[in-house]
């Protein structure tokens, strides 16, 4: 088997997932300067929402036909949880010192994990997620599982739609304005509260789509899946330049590919054989973050903070 195309494909699949989740971090940060550490759990509940819809389906329902409904279910659950969190946990703290909402976010993340753990039937162990049947498909020398094709199609579609929304619609322009100068946005007649809810909702919807991709790829979902994925996606958002939606996707892909290449090749470097294999992949991912923060703190596509007068 040809190794490099395979490693790149694996990285791309992983990275597209990181990128989809990273959008939620970056949009919320761009507008309210809050790092929503509960976003990993918003992703996780989306996975359970999608799974629940699947379990409701009658036997023999084709998975291909079920996927759109599963996405819908996941999106509804994630958006509901995220907008409720905004309304009842974050909005009352607007204007408070930044540490307060940050700690609230961490608390909320624990609460959401525990709620799923306690009340989702049998959630103490991982739940199997439906899988597409059939063998892998060969693309440019890489063999790609059918389930993984989902994120490779969904991520570019989502980015394209989001780009159009932000630049071409009135609400999208209102969102840009709110991110750049919230008080002046109000003077234009923009209901900034509604824009903030919209940012949370879009981020949550993308996270739910990523959760479906995660389930299809890994064959299971569990209440803990949001932690590491959330942390990686946050890394991706910072890597790409937090506040920049294209940066979030780029950061995700760079992170995914770097992780995959490091896993595949670092062990081959003479003297580095100890560090080969998948066990070290998180180390490489976070090392990359540290390097970027050292040499380009604003991220790959980020603007210098100074121009935010």
């Amino acid at each position, binding site marked *: 088997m040809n190794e490099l195309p395979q490693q790149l494909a694996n990285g791309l699949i992983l990275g597209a997932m990181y990128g989809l989740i990273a959008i939620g971090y970056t949009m919320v940060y761009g507008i309210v300067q809050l790092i929503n550490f509960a976003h990993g759990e918003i992703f996780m509940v989306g996975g359970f929402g999608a799974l629940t819809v699947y379990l409701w389906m009658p036997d023999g329902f084709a998975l291909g036909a079920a996927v759109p409904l599963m996405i819908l279910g996941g999106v509804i659950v994630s958006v509901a949880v995220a907008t409720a969190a905004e309304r009842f946990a974050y909005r009352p703290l607007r204007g408070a010192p930044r540490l307060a909402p940050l700690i609230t976010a961490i608390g909320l993340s624990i609460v959401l994990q525990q709620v799923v753990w306690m009340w989702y039937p049998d959630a103490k162990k991982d739940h199997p997620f439906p899988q597409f049947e059939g063998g892998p498909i060969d693309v440019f020398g890489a063999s790609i599982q059918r389930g993984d094709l989902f994120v490779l199609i969904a991520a570019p579609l989502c980015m394209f739609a989001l780009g159009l929304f932000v630049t071409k619609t009135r609400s999208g322009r*209102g969102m840009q304005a709110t991110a*750049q100068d919230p008080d002046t946005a109000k003077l*234009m007649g923009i209901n900034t509260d509604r824009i903030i809810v919209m940012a949370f909702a879009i981020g949550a919807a993308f996270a739910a789509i990523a959760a479906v991709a995660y389930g299809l790829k890994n064959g299971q979902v569990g209440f803990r899946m949001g932690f590491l994925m959330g942390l990686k996606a946050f890394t991706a958002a910072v890597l790409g330049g937090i506040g920049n939606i294209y940066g979030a996707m780029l950061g995700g892909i760079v992170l995914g590919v770097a992780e995959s290449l490091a896993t595949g090749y670092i062990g081959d470097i003479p003297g580095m054989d100890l560090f080969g294999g998948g066990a070290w992949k998180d180390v490489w991912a976070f090392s990359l973050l540290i390097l970027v923060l050292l040499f380009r703190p604003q991220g790959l596509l980020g603007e210098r903070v100074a121009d935010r007068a």
Partner: protein
Amino acid sequence: MTALLEVEDLRVAYGKIEAVKGISFKVEAGEVVTLIGTNGAGKTTTLRTLSGLLQPLGGQIKFDGKSLRKIPAHKIVSLGLAHSPEGRHIFPRMTIEDNLRLGAYLRTDKEGIEKDIQRAYDLFPILGERRKQAAGTLSGGEQQMLAMGRALMSQPKLLMLDEPSMGLSPIMMQKIMATIQELKAQGTTILLIEQNAQAALSLADHGHVMEVGKIVLSGTGQDLLHDESVRKAYLGED
């Protein structure tokens, strides 16, 4: 016939510090009213309260017959009150045209919006030449033009301008003042805050001098321009 804007005994505080301590004034339709005074006199605080960004501690604000208290900032512009803020506050990473469009955020008459964008370009030709450029790349004076053009896009009954000449070169300052004169001639009602008291009073119908949160002197623009104490304090004469 009541005035377009009636402010009565308005008080505003930041925490425990009262920045505006009970001021009253009126703006009649079609006139230019100016508030002058030193930094910290409470002029900007007054405007920010009128447009809903700050909540008053007490007093009445009546605009076009309606009380503005309890109306959130984002709804005030639809009543016909536009605010071009101190420091211009254009949206730096959006194009000039998008900035103007944001000024018309609540309007739904597409044709009217296009027509008014054109009008802004007629008023400020430089904006038209650079319509696709990011607004942050404009010079200070050009940004001021954009901020004024953007405020006009909501078709306001009252245009509030906060320090439009701040930080501008003398030539640019003259240009901005000439534009305000032009808007006045077109019948626009304007509430103007200026540090350049000479220029502001020369074109204002009425003026009020503010000192530490209070109006200490009121009169027609011409009266104030020739008032001894005003000349000493604000026009740099001894």
